[in-house]
């Protein structure tokens, strides 16, 4: 552990979006922050430390990308505040490393000049030097350094080239701040900067010939084509969907087998009793019902990581702009909403790149209706039951696609209504998006990111869900009754009594007290629903389990109301699915929304609206269906 006193200095990395600041940050500190080939992946300030070749410890801040210090969007304001030393707990940086894309100096130097004008000492890092050289640009770092008065280091952060040279340039004593020699009395700073950059680029960054058609240009000719572009877009989405719901079956089968074997092994070791019941029904059954979905969640993050890393995400945003406009949003809302399919929390944070404040609020509001990965386990449990079949038929992906579409379309309708009510912005924000060149995916970072997310999921299963499973097991076991009948035992337990209280609230939706209890527990995390059902329904036909989920499904199918009617009728299951599509059962999301929107009212309003909407929609489905004679 290090004390602040042994830190020699604080260094900030700043640059335009997608200049490779985070890649450089990771290369310097050996950390694993998320990088993407899409502007606005970094929306927060991240800090790390590294050592110079002389053994000095430096603290480095990775700032969100910004085009200028004028600070239009929330993530840009964070960067500007960090440079001014106005962030709580962060000193004013002693040195700024301006990261620029070497193939794009004309544009990126604008920001560098503004930083120099602030009077902060600077080092210029010419990143992606390989891309620049391949495009035929003739760069002269020595001339640049001379003209600007700054140390200039050429590097290729993605391959780790030049990182050592950069560390050398950061040795003590740190460079001094230099005078902004382009500023002249009587000339507007913008004009002065522009003229200076034009002269500088002619001198030190000569382009071979204007506008050579690059590989990316040619690829865009197809991928952004009004017709073929959409064919590719839908093809990519369907391929992703297929991988998540089809390909993931294989590793999921292994987990299922391992779990069945583990249950049987524990069963053979322990005598009948409370401990065996706790381990088999509570721990293995509860946690297992959630861990099962690890492969699908990993694949979802891999898919989104690939889209971001290759640069396709920006194209998707461009294509979707027209569609999003119908919902009163712009293409910029596409990435946040799309990320919300994985998890609403990073999705809500990604809205920081949206310039229009009102569009951002609306995007935050509807993001939780993009069905997140935590809802998948619930869908995957119920959908095969609804179709009366085992997993793996072609109809299930269709139903799942319908579920995702319903959530998305509802979100668009609500967004449109809400956007209309909020009125136009004070200053019009137009659609403006950089299309980064296509790059090969940075596999190392993507895989590390996927592993991190998968590990977080396993940790959650091992801590929160394990704890809740044990708690649920205890609540459904104690106090014990003398009766031998399982249903009677449950009715006597604390959980059974809770269910009686909840039943009037959920009965109009077609659920009994047990489902009501499971829904209530899923407010801690949606996946817990499966664990709760596994524990609550173990009383009916508890046999040796080989395939845990299959067995749970068999138990659910056999579950009945006290008067003998089946509990999980198709109508009740549809009502349950609809409830899960719309309910915002995720307290961490509420906390993040409150922080990002800066208003607890907005967050609690969203929670109340979505819960009420879910309840009403389920009620409508169930009661409407019964009136039509379907139930």
């Amino acid at each position, binding site marked *: 552990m290090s004390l602040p006193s042994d830190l020699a200095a604080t260094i900030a990395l700043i640059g335009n979006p997608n200049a490779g600041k985070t890649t450089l940050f990771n290369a310097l500190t050996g950390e694993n922050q998320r990088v993407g080939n899409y502007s606005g992946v970094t929306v927060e300030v991240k800090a790390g430390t590294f050592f110079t070749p002389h053994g000095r410890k430096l603290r480095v801040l990775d700032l969100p990308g910004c085009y200028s210090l004028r600070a239009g969007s929330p993530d840009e304001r964070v960067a500007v505040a960090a440079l001014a030393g106005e962030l709580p707990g962060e000193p004013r940086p002693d040195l700024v490393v301006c990261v620029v894309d070497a193939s*794009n100096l004309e544009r990126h130097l604008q920001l560098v000049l503004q930083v120099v004008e602030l009077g902060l000492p600077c080092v210029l890092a010419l990143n992606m030097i390989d891309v620049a050289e391949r495009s035929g640009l003739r760069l002269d770092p020595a001339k640049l350094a001379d003209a600007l008065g700054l140390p200039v280091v050429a590097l290729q952060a993605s391959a780790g080239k030049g990182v050592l040279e950069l560390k050398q340039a950061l040795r003590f004593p740190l460079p001094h701040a230099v005078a902004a020699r382009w500023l002249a009395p009587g000339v507007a700073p913008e004009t002065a900067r*522009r003229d200076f950059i034009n002269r500088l680029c002619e001198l030190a960054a000569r382009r071979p010939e204007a*506008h050579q058609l690059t590989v990316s240009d040619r690829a865009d000719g197809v991928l952004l084509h009004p017709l073929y572009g959409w064919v590719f877009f839908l093809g990519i989405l369907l391929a992703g969907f297929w991988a998540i719901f089809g390909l993931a079956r294989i590793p999921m089968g292994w987990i299922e087998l391992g779990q069945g074997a583990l249950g049987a092994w524990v069963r053979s070791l322990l005598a009948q009793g409370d401990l065996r019941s706790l381990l088999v029904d509570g721990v293995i059954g509860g946690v297992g019902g959630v861990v099962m979905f690890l492969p699908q969640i990993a694949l979802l993050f891999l898919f989104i990581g690939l889209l971001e890393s290759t640069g396709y995400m920006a194209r998707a945003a461009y294509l979707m702009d*027209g569609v999003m406009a119908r919902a009163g949003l712009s293409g910029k809302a596409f990435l946040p909403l799309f990320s919300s399919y994985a998890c609403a929390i990073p999705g809500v944070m990604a809205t920081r790149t949206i310039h229009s404040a009102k569009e951002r609020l609306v995007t935050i509001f509807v993001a939780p209706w993009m069905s997140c990965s935590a809802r998948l386990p619930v869908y995957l449990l119920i959908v095969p039951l609804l179709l009366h079949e085992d997993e793996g038929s072609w109809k299930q992906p269709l139903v799942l696609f319908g579920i995702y579409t319903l959530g998305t379309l509802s979100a668009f309708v609500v967004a449109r209504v809400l956007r209309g009510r909020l009125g136009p912005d004070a200053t019009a924000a137009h659609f403006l998006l*950089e299309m980064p060149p296509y790059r090969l995916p940075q596999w190392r970072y993507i895989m590390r990111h996927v592993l991190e997310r998968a590990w977080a999921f396993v940790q959650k299963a091992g801590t929160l869900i394990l704890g809740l499973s044990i708690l649920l097991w205890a609540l459904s076991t104690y106090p014990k009754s003398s009766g031998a009948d399982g249903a009677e035992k449950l009715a006597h337990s604390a959980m059974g009594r809770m269910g009686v209280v909840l039943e009037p609230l959920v009965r109009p939706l077609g659920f009994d007290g047990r489902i009501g209890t499971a829904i209530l527990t899923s407010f801690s995390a949606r996946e817990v629903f499966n664990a709760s059902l596994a524990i609550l329904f173990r009383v009916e036909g508890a046999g040796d389990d080989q395939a845990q989920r299959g067995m749970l499904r068999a138990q659910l199918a056999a579950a009945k109301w006290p008067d003998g009617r089946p509990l999980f009728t198709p109508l009740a299951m549809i009502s349950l699915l609809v409830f899960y599509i719309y309910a915002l059962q995720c307290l961490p999301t509420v906390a993040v929304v409150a922080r990002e929107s800066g208003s607890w009212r907005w967050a609690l309003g969203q929670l109340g609206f979505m819960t009420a909407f879910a309840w009403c929609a389920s009620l409508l489905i169930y009661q409407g269906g019964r009136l039509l004679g379907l139930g």
Partner: protein
Amino acid sequence: MKFAAPKVLEMDTAMTLNQAGVGCDLRIHVLSGPGCERLRELGFCEQSQVRKLAGGRNLICSVCGTRLAISRELAEQVLVKAAG
């Protein structure tokens, strides 16, 4: 009055980025409008070369080696001339 004629002609050949044909190499003549500050930050400056790569609801242009998608409203604020 005699000297004014060439200047008028020059203004006539300027067009907005929306009017320019796809695939044309252009030079930015004037930026005017509320969005021009943002455009300048992104490299749309007077005298820089632009190629319009795609039209439609949003345009795609290549400026200083970067591709940018900009809305029609913004493109309306960019006056360009054919690069000669």
